[in-house]
């Protein structure tokens, strides 16, 4: 989700109609962008990553013109034929191979419009641009520049210029080391020997993409002609971003002028042509619309649409990035039809329900142990080695571990449940005793499966209070044994975390499935508890 802030009055002006703010909040969502009021005329609009064309007030106004039926169909953008060029040198192939560009003239910019433009640029960087890696945009005041431009890669010391926000000439390498933006984005150019630059015919460096521009070309409220560059690693993305920018500027009255970039004329506004089969639309949506009705709805979403007998010929605007499949067109038709207007229809799917045996068994265990008087706990699956082993006085074992956990507290997946129940006792120290908890849940164990780890289901039970000992745990186990109708064997054993002579293994048909005992004073103290604790833990999935 990307959020942008827009001025509602600007939006209304571009829309050509004033729409009540409450209505925007209520109905705006039905297009797939959520409106929130901030204060005064400022609105915050949340958009989804599939629609980067909605990241500006211009793009939003264009879309809502269609959605509210003010102006529908594909909006046409004409480019004047221009003479300027961008030469693309092979040296960029290794580092940042793609560039797109255009010139937009006769702009009347205000501070507010410039802020909107910068917001669009920044949001495109963050979303489509994957933090400038996949694409980065430069906007330049054309006045100071002498085209043709050249896009090439040079060594870090080869050129220097005064970057934005810094009042000294710097080499490219210095910018990466010292400039705030350089440090923030230097990871994109890591391990590169040469860095990309754009320069004009007088060898003035305009831009060091994807890092920073020359302050010489900074766009200000007196700027009327702009040169836009978009560089990146993915050709399609770079070109789409250019289209999104250029159409937003054209909606503001700018005149687009074509530019020859590496021998190709840009921007290219020619639409993708698709055919939507009306029968296919009906199958997927369940809506019984005619070709004409489908076409009308597509036009509301600002597609070009021509209804034929059984299909609709569709022109996809060049700024749309999300139309990969007919399903995407179908979605837009249904959005224009409005989700509110869809009548639910239950299909006939004859099938008998079934549940997993282990879930059913866990339900029986809940009945049995709550009947015994225990509270069911609901605990975290993620834990730390400290809680699972150190505090439990248990030798560390190989368990499922994450590589990038934000905190040590949630850095491994637990392989047993009792520590989680100790946590519950710890958190309830201020309540009266005796306290009794159980939980039947999954743990993860490493194994030799294709993934290397699998879930197992365990059951743990703890009881704590004055005078509690092994016998109390044994009582609970016997209730479980009796009510599940299983025969368990209890055989004396030793565990570091249990009191000597108060610990046993639990066996089912000769197989070890768990342990029972009274916890050692050390473990009880480690959890800051004052009362003795006894309990058991078994593989519940062995009891299925």
């Amino acid at each position, binding site marked *: 989700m990307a959020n942008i802030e827009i001025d509602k009055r600007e939006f209304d002006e571009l829309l050509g109609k004033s729409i009540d703010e409450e209505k925007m909040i209520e109905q705006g969502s*039905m297009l797939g962008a959520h409106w929130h009021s901030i204060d005064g005329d400022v609105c915050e609009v949340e958009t989804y990553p599939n629609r980067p064309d909605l990241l500006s007030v211009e793009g939003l106004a264009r879309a809502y013109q269609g959605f509210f039926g003010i102006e529908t169909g594909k909006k046409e953008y004409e480019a004047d034929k221009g003479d300027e060029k961008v030469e693309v040198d092979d040296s960029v192939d290794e580092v940042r191979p793609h560039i797109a560009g255009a010139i937009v003239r006769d702009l009347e910019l205000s501070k507010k419009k410039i802020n909107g433009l910068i917001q669009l640029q920044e949001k495109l960087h963050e979303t489509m641009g994957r933090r400038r890696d996949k694409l980065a945009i430069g906007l330049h005041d054309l006045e100071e520049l002498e085209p043709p431009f050249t896009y090439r890669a040079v060594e870090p010391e080869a050129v220097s210029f005064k970057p934005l926000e810094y009042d000294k000439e710097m080499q490219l390498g210095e910018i990466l080391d010292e400039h705030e933006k350089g440090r923030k984005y230097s990871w994109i150019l890591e391990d590169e020997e040469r860095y990309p630059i754009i320069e004009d015919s007088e060898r003035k460096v305009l831009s060091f993409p994807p890092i920073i521009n020359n302050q010489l070309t900074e766009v200000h409220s007196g700027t009327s002609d702009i040169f836009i560059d978009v560089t990146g690693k993915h050709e399609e993305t770079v070109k789409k971003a250019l289209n999104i920018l250029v159409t937003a500027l054209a909606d503001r009255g700018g005149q687009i002028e074509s530019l020859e970039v590496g021998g190709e004329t840009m921007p290219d506004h020619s639409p993708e042509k698709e055919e939507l089969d009306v029968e296919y639309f009906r199958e997927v949506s369940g809506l019984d619309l005619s070709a004409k009705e489908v076409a009308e709805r597509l036009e509301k979403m600002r597609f070009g649409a021509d209804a034929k007998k059984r299909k609709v010929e569709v022109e996809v605007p060049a700024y749309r990035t999300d139309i990969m499949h007919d399903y995407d067109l179908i979605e837009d038709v249904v959005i224009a039809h409005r989700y509110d207007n869809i009548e639910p229809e239950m299909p006939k799917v004859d099938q008998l329900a079934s549940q997993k045996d282990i879930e059913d068994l866990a339900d029986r265990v809940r009945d049995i142990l709550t009947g015994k008087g225990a509270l069911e706990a609901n605990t975290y699956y993620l834990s730390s080695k400290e809680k699972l082993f150190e505090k439990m006085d248990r030798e560390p074992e190989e368990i499922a571990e994450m590589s990038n956990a934000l905190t040590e507290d949630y850095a491994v997946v637990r392989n047993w449940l009792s520590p989680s129940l100790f946590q519950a006792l710890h958190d309830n120290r201020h309540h009266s*005793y005796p306290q009794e908890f159980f939980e039947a849940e999954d743990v993860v164990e490493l194994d030799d499966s294709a993934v290397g780890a699998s879930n197992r289901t365990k059951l743990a039970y703890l009881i704590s209070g004055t005078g509690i000992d092994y016998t109390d745990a044994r009582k609970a186990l016997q209730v479980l044994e009796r009510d599940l109708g299983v025969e368990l064997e209890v055989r004396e054993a030793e565990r570091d975390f249990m009191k000597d002579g108060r610990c046993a293994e639990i066996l089912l048909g000769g197989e070890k499935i768990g342990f029972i005992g009274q916890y050692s004073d050390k473990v009880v103290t480690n959890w800051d508890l004052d009362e003795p604790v006894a309990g058991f833990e078994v593989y519940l999935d062995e009891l299925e």
Partner: protein
Amino acid sequence: MKLSKQAINVLEELQDTEELTISQFEERGYDQSMVNRAALELQEKGLIEIEEEEEESYELTEAGEEVRKEGSPEHRLLERVEEGDNRISDLQDLQIDVALGKAREHGWIQIRDGEVELLDPGEEALGEDVLKKRLGESRFKEEDVKRGLVDETTSTVRTLKITDEGYEIDAGDVELEFNVEAEAETPRVGKTHFYKDILGFAREKFMEMGFQEMSGDFVVPGLLNFDALYTPQDHPARDLQDTFFMEKPEKSDLSEYGEKVQHIKETHEDGWETGSSGWGYDWSEEDAAQNVLRTHTTAVSARRLHEIDVNEEELPKKFFIIGRNFRNETVDRTHLAGFIQLDGIVVGEDLNFKNLKAYLSEFFEKMGYSEFRLIPSYYPYTEMSVEVQVWDEEEEAWLGMGGAGLFRPEVVKPLLGYEATVLAWGLGLGRVAMKAAGLEDLRELYRNDIEILETTPKWRPKNRGEK
């Protein structure tokens, strides 16, 4: 003299011990409000005296706990600067505003051109992290409270002391005053967890609708969690921030997916035979084999689609799972490192968007919500992508309950091997549980506070019609 049974019990305890605080009574298994009522009764009769004293107690906050473990931000700043790490922009991993503020307050540092310089007092302060030590030894100061490192709570300690008159009474001679209107103590009984009750209720509802239950592992290859769900490999969700990547076990063997791996690859690159244009990039099998903790139960739905054998199981089919999922988030009042999701899929030849809306509206009606709506949303693996909202009558607001949609052909065809329609959803009931227990802090769902567990009523849906 007439006394209630409770008052006699309290009096007898005091005859043995002379005096006890309310919390000492609680330790002996008495209910706090019962003791208080009995105390007033005994005081009125002059048998005991009640003394009240204010007691202040201090406890480290989460921030304080961090200082105790890791050291104070200002001292860590000194250490880093000493190590030569003196650019402010490099020190952002510390709580830099606090660190700089405090260090300057102490006169330890000065800042020049975005660099931190140690002054003499700072050099001296390097020796020992005084704040860390102090907090470790529980020697708190007023300033620690102001700084949010320590929580101060004032509580009233009530001590019941027996009077001479109280001593002389023979409890056996006291006439019992029986009050049928007085409340008895509510006993502690076994009880299931309210959140699990709600999930269990939802599970029943899916089964009423004829769904079959699925299960799946927490650790899955990226292939299932992302690639099979048409999430491109440079998608922000795959960034380190959101997803837990596994160090152990690091990679999966994908051979069980056979040629489907190649089909998924081609679908991402150019659409394969799905009718899609694809994402247009070079797909890496290595990234797909990297194990993650599943970030949604939709990974289990994907696995189920892979396992459906057209010769064995006749379509249409419908499945559900209620399971845990994981997100690499810093845990606080509104964020947890995991959440529980209810995933459902319906797989068939003749299914459509209207059917999806029908299943969702049926389910939420069963859950007691009379108004329900869908609004457009986005997921890489569905189209129509919708957000499911229900009308909450108390809050008078739409509540988001999760996402849904039709799986894209780019998901279905590579996994199933043929084309079919798949209705899918991933819903959350955490908010329902929060409301049921009157909680404000998400962490309480997993903290098992006995009082909350005991006092939360057994959950039933608000509007109970025939559903």
